[in-house]
């Protein structure tokens, strides 16, 4: 019997302010050393292109745009790694929530 190829599973808070809490779960092919952001970008390509996630630099942890709650703790999607259990991703609290994992990170600038 052949072993199932390993998969990475992400569970993501969807929607925006005022909507009833909703989570979607997807699994994508696991790649050794992959980040949670890699998994979410796979989801956008393979399953749901409407998933909103903010990022700019590519897994380099330079732009700091991909901050989110990862399994309940604030962190960066590009440096967090999926394990054997589903990873829960939620928008950062205490920032204006736009949609899915995206919050308004720029509320300090004039005109934001």
């Amino acid at each position: 019997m052949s072993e199932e190829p390993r998969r990475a599973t992400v569970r993501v808070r969807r929607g925006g302010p005022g909507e009833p809490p909703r989570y979607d779960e997807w699994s994508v092919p696991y790649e050794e050393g992959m980040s949670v952001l890699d998994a979410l970008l796979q989801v956008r390509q393979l399953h749901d292109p409407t998933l909103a996630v903010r990022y700019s630099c590519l897994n380099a942890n330079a732009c700091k745009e991909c901050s989110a709650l990862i399994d309940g703790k604030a962190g960066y999607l590009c440096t967090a790694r999926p394990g054997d259990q589903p990873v829960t991703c939620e928008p950062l609290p205490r920032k204006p929530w736009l949609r899915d994992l995206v919050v308004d990170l720029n509320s300090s600038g004039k005109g934001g």
Partner: protein
Amino acid sequence: MVTPKRTEVLVIGAGGAGMYAAIAAARAGRDVLLLDKSLIGRGGATIMAQMTVSAAIGHAEPDDPDLHYADTLRAGRGLCNPALARALCADGPARILEMDAWGAGWARQADGRLAQVHAPGHSRRRCVYVDPLNTGPAVARTLQARVAQEARVRRVSNLVVTDLVVRDGCCLGAVAVDLNTGEPRHFHAAATVLAAGGLTRLFRRNSASANMTGDAYALALRAGAALVDMEFVQFFPIAHLAPRLVGMDPIMWDPFRYKLGGRLLNGEMAEFLDRYGSSDAGQYVATRDVVSHAILAEVAAGRGSPHGGAYLDFRHVPDASLRAAFGPVIDRLLKNGIDLTQTPVEVSPMAHYHMGGIRCDTQMATGLPGLYAAGEAVGGAHGANRLSGNAITEAFVFGERAGRAAAAWVQQAGLTAWDGALAAELAAVPQRPLAVGRAAAAHKGAGAGGSPAQLIATLQALMADQVGPVRTGAGLEQALEQIRAWQRHLSEIGAADVHPFNTDLLDWLDLRNLLATAEAVTAAALARQESRGAHFRTDFPESREQATANVVLRRCGAALDLRWTPLEEVRV
């Protein structure tokens, strides 16, 4: 009818060049609106530029902008626009020292003058840095802070400019989509600076930010401006390939090589650059174009590393030396399962920078009254290959020049009357994929040909395979045909109507610009039947004297007009 927001100077793109342009225009007394499709100062390529910045300030050893200029021309393989290259080298020192006064935190020598290191292709120790793995973020923060102090600069993030508004050959401003609301926005400006960076996301493996989707080039083409040298994409030769590494910049091995040497080896663990007219021997002297071709030629000859690249080996460097040079980084590597004392890493070329871009004079004027360009968006200064360290210098120098020139244009020309009907027509473009998406959803089917995100991935693969560091005429022809087919097909691709932060629509708009840019790069690469600098054709492996000229592209209706143009001499 959407009421346009009026400003004197509109700056599109808020990386290093855009922020510098905004500062320069503001200190010339003009009101500035600074837009970015990502976050101000965080998207763009500057924040990913981790290493060094070249300028002939002569702190480490005697130097002169003329020497910097000569090195820049030599690297450009005879194709640099001499006036732009001279401007870059002449203004570099003033910009570096100005950034120093603004608190960039350049590393210093014991005597308090700025520290400068040698980089490949430079004849002097010329490159300043903050921290060899963190220069870009430090520079971006400095400019962000400086921009924030300018009362005349208003900053707006998450605005995706979809077209410039051009009437009677004159740029009146731009139309955009506000990602945070999904609403259209119109901007009426006396002068517009395009500083929206490069095109590296065209390729599967790339080292810049995700928003480098050729926006500046595509906007300029649609507006009627000319592009030059589009065939010259710089591939960074020793970008990380394997094992998988996250949380670090894939071009991080460059500073390692500066400090520790390291050995570049093929799959047989043998040095190989000497077969390609250069040398390694643990030194770091070969230019980027030579190393990229050499690695891919070894892979093609069956002598690549397991993942299709070359090995970079630091096993001969004592652990104490590794830690002394890069202590915290060594720990981050260990967390990624990489122990440099035990195993070599694999590296291979990755799209890094674009030499080509919008054709400009030394005031960064594009030839379209009211439209200026700055930074990587500009073509010509580097010819066929850019020297290490010249990209951030270019962002500062061309940004400052563009901002100053735009301010002077405002003074001279004032605000031309807005054309609301034309703006509304252009602003309708993003509505089309949404309508297609709604129709597809109503029929419970996906739009034809998959999502924009899927098509971007397919395009990236095509560009990497056929229009990458090694090209052939047949491959380029096939790629061009495919790109044009996708362009015709674009109107059938839908995007989901979900707001705010509609990433599917953003992908569609990115795809539109990526395709326009891909067509320009591929058409120019097909026309250049020779090999020179970053452009390498296996069917024409030598340089040809008669090709010492620039390929200039313009849009002519739906077609691209391609012309060979003699090297330009634009007066400084």
